[in-house]
């Protein structure tokens, strides 16, 4: 491909996909050590396909949390894809089937790559290439990780620290603005305070109350958030 606009998009989406593949491996390892079967880990990546929610579910279930608390927290994290779909839906017309496929690929990475382009044609191309690249790598990574996870002891190799480390990388970009820092600090504090006194999973749900710091309109020139992805996964 020699198109000067699309070539960098292609390169970036493959690099991004490869990085996501590593993340997929850590998800696969974590999922099976939290009690999921290889099939469950793979089906989750194929059908759910939104990293933060999948990590959250595995993390809560692995610690002994209830299905309901795991599901609620994960769905809250998945809600932002609804905001992305508003943005992508506008630049991606097409048949019902086409939009249904596009919807499944509407995640942080594909949205970020699409909105970074100027013209609609490049936006659509960036969306599809990135979405498909991430889909392939994420699922391949999950399978590899799930197979590794059944054959190594995660604690011996320190793989239980891989999850929170991945979360640190995910949360880092949102700490760039003040509201993100306040919400993160409050969320962490709520979780810390509730771990000893509530069932597993509940502290994560209650931490979502920290998003209420977004209510005041504020005077800062921050771009209206929500439309654009701020986490890498």
């Amino acid at each position, binding site marked *: 491909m020699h198109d000067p606009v699309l070539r960098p998009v292609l390169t970036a989406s493959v690099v991004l996909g490869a*990085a996501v593949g590593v993340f997929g491996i*850590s998800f696969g390892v974590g999922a099976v050590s939290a*009690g999921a079967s290889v099939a469950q880990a793979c089906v*989750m990546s194929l*059908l*759910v*396909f*939104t990293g*933060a929610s999948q990590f959250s*579910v595995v993390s809560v*279930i692995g*610690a*002994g949390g209830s299905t309901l608390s795991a*599901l609620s927290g994960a*769905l*809250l994290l*998945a*809600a*932002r894809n*609804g*905001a*992305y*779909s*508003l943005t*992508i*839906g506008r630049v991606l017309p097409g048949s019902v089937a086409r939009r249904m496929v596009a919807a*499944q690929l509407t995640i942080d990475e594909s949205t970020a790559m699409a909105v970074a382009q100027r013209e609609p044609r490049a936006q659509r191309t960036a969306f599809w290439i990135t979405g498909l690249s991430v889909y392939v790598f994420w699922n391949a990574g999950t399978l590899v990780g799930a197979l590794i996870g059944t054959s190594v002891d995660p604690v011996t*190799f*320190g793989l239980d*620290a891989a*999850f*929170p*480390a991945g979360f*640190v*990388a995910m*949360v*880092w970009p*949102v*700490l760039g603005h003040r*509201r993100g*820092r306040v*919400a*993160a600090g409050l*969320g*962490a504090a709520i979780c*810390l305070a509730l*771990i000893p*006194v509530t*069932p597993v999973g509940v502290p*994560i749900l209650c*931490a979502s*109350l*920290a*998003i209420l710091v*977004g*209510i005041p309109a504020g005077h800062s020139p921050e771009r*209206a*958030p*929500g439309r654009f992805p*701020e986490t890498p996964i």
Partner: protein
Amino acid sequence: MSWALVLGLAAGAYAFKLLGFFALGQREIPAVIERCMALIPAALIAALIVKDTIGDGQHLHLDERILGVAAATVAVWRRAPFVVVIVIAAAVTGGARAITGA
């Protein structure tokens, strides 16, 4: 982990993704909802970091994980690639356990 959870999450997550393509059309989300939704990852992921670093079921438990996550945080701050962050976290945590015999 139950299949109901896997499939329930799949259905719910897909429903959110379909929203903008079909249900909401050209409608705008109120700005206040948008501002709050944008903070969901910050609030929840920060909580997950706390839980996975020093939580152990319903107890707080300081162990080698905190060293690995601290090292990973430095790596993230130094803009290390994702794979390096993960490897550092696992290597420091696993290494510390090997040394302490935990």
